[in-house]
């Protein structure tokens, strides 16, 4: 069994949001429903201020609070370490959204956040119970693992591109987009990253590239004090940083 994890090198990340777009295309996301997002935040006060950013996929925690709170086991930890949603079990109670410290979960039935027309209305009337029917969508669909266009009234989230990663040969340590053998099994955000800031591999394999990166460059995890133990690590290096607390302090 693998324990898939991701390393994001913030020294290399240029905040271009290519990962966000690639994820949206790969997983047929609605505008605003960003399973993967780049969060920009400001440190310091004017004039001594700096704009910083970090990409934020689902952390696929070792100890996921969303899995513990789900009253129906719709959200579960898969064998290979991904946190997935079974859309045929989800009752849409949104407890997982409330319980996720990283805000990576999305409820389907909502007013659009971007002010434009609701894409679900523009492309409505999907086959079966699909929440919308986009003119183009990726072919894969696997509701038991939260893959594809979701049905109405469920919660969706990043699935570490389960449809790509799940059929990789057993024992693979690294999913490297540079390697033709593993490229098509690598999550879309990792493949598309123009600066190669993302690494994806098996955290249970001591020889994997992700483990080497974490060890040599002092990988840190977001909000580690909450005890969720993310399987996504950040390399902050000299230039990057992740916020130790909420990204945005409310102006009170």
């Amino acid at each position, binding site marked *: 069994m693998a324990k898939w994890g991701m390393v994001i090198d913030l020294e290399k990340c240029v905040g271009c949001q290519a990962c966000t777009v690639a994820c949206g295309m790969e997983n047929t996301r609605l505008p605003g429903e960003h399973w993967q997002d780049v969060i920009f935040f400001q440190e310091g006060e004017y004039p001594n201020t700096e704009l910083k950013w970090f990409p934020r996929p689902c952390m696929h925690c070792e100890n996921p609070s969303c899995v513990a709170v789900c009253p129906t086991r719709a959200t579960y930890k898969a064998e290979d370490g991904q946190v997935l949603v079974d859309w045929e079990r989800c009752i849409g109670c949104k407890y997982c959204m409330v319980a996720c410290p990283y805000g990576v979960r999305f409820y389907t039935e909502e007013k659009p956040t971007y002010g434009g027309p609701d894409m679900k209305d523009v492309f409505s009337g999907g086959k079966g119970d699909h929440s919308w029917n986009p003119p183009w969508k990726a072919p894969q669909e696997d509701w038991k693992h939260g893959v594809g266009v979701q049905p109405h009234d469920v919660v969706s989230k990043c699935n570490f591109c389960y449809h790509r990663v799940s059929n990789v040969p057993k024992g693979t340590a690294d999913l490297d987009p540079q390697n033709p053998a593993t490229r098509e099994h690598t999550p879309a955000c990792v493949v598309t990253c123009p600066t190669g800031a993302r690494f994806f591999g098996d955290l249970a394999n001591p020889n994997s590239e992700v483990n080497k990166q974490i060890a040599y460059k002092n990988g840190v995890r977001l909000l580690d004090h909450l005890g969720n133990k993310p399987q996504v690590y950040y390399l902050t290096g000299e230039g990057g940083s992740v916020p130790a607390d909420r990204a945005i302090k*409310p102006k009170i």
Partner: protein
Amino acid sequence: MIANKKEPKTFGEVFALLGDLYKSEGAASFIQQCLTLGKEPTPAGRWWLFSIITTLVSFAFVMYQLIFVGHASFNTSSNGVNWGMAISTYVFFALISSGLTMIASLGTVFGFKQFMPIAKRSIFLAIITLVAGFSVLALELGHPFRMLWAVPTGMQILSPMFWMGVFYTIDLILLIIKFYLMWQEDWDSGLSHLVGNLGFVAVILASGMLGLVFGSLAMRPMWFGAFTSIYYMLTAALSGAAAIVVTTYMAYGFDSSKMRPELRALASGEELPKVFATLIGITMVMILTRFWVGLWTNADGMDGFNVLVKTPLFHIQLWLGLVLPFIMMLSPSMQTRMKPQIIAAFLVLGAMFINRYEFIIGGQLVPMFKGTWAYSLAPYFPSATEWALTVMGFGITLALYALGEKLFVLSATPPTSTEAERSKLAHV
């Protein structure tokens, strides 16, 4: 149902009564009597008609919105407030139900005989407020019917929501059994005491688990901690006390002279206001401790308390909804009189509604990792659909209460009073 002077004692009798009425009165008159709860106008009949219309209109509006717009007709958002007013309304009703069971337990479990005249009414109200709460919750959920098989087959024992469901279901079943036993005038059997005692334990666990749903979340610091379950249990007791004061007077058209003597003795005595004032006092202390920790701490995410104390709702809740009724219920000249009691109880119910809203929404105000656009506090105001859902909850409670008032003798006490007295007062 309506013409009979006696409370029907079995379901067979209830239906036989309805059948006889239908035969003797004819269809048109039967329907009219069902809609107004009887020929002679009664307080229950008036609010029955009003509340049934309110329920139907609000339910129709909610269903129209849910069918044609879906849950997008709510103003909740993945980027901010995930749980809106529907959840706070559910919590409001669920905790009123728990509180009413606690108030009933004063007589049935702890043996304070003077509280017996409100025990049966409390149990009945506990059932219907729980039904109202569950109805609101069901319309908030994305797939309420899926819950029926997905929860038992999932058996996710780590989930506080799972246990909340388990204990509120046990609570509801025990309440129904207890009410059935009271209906059959079985107040003193071993079974009746056992059900009462188990019901009290169940309700403590149920309200505690509802608190745990919020209190277990370390990532939501305004909710997190052992305090939340205690807070829910004790403030539930206050909600229940306020609800029973309002509804008892309501049943007699806000005229205490029509009450049965034991009930009038309780209403105009010192015990009830003393219990009421004590519970208001406990609630104020708990709000105070919650807020002084929240305002003092530097912990990340607790900033929401600074926002809450600046809202008018908070001050309405505190000064108008708790401090004023507290003073009224302590004042010797006011505590035993009907009007101040009713006003105090209404104010407290309003305060508790605000309290649940402020607790649920306030805990989600400070944004988490949601992207560049979540730059300040999460905006939220309930949509028309959410308001309608709340109105529906109140409508269901009132309608079922009026029906219960007509069908049962809710002020019944253990058989110390004579049968003649009971039949005379059964249909006030």
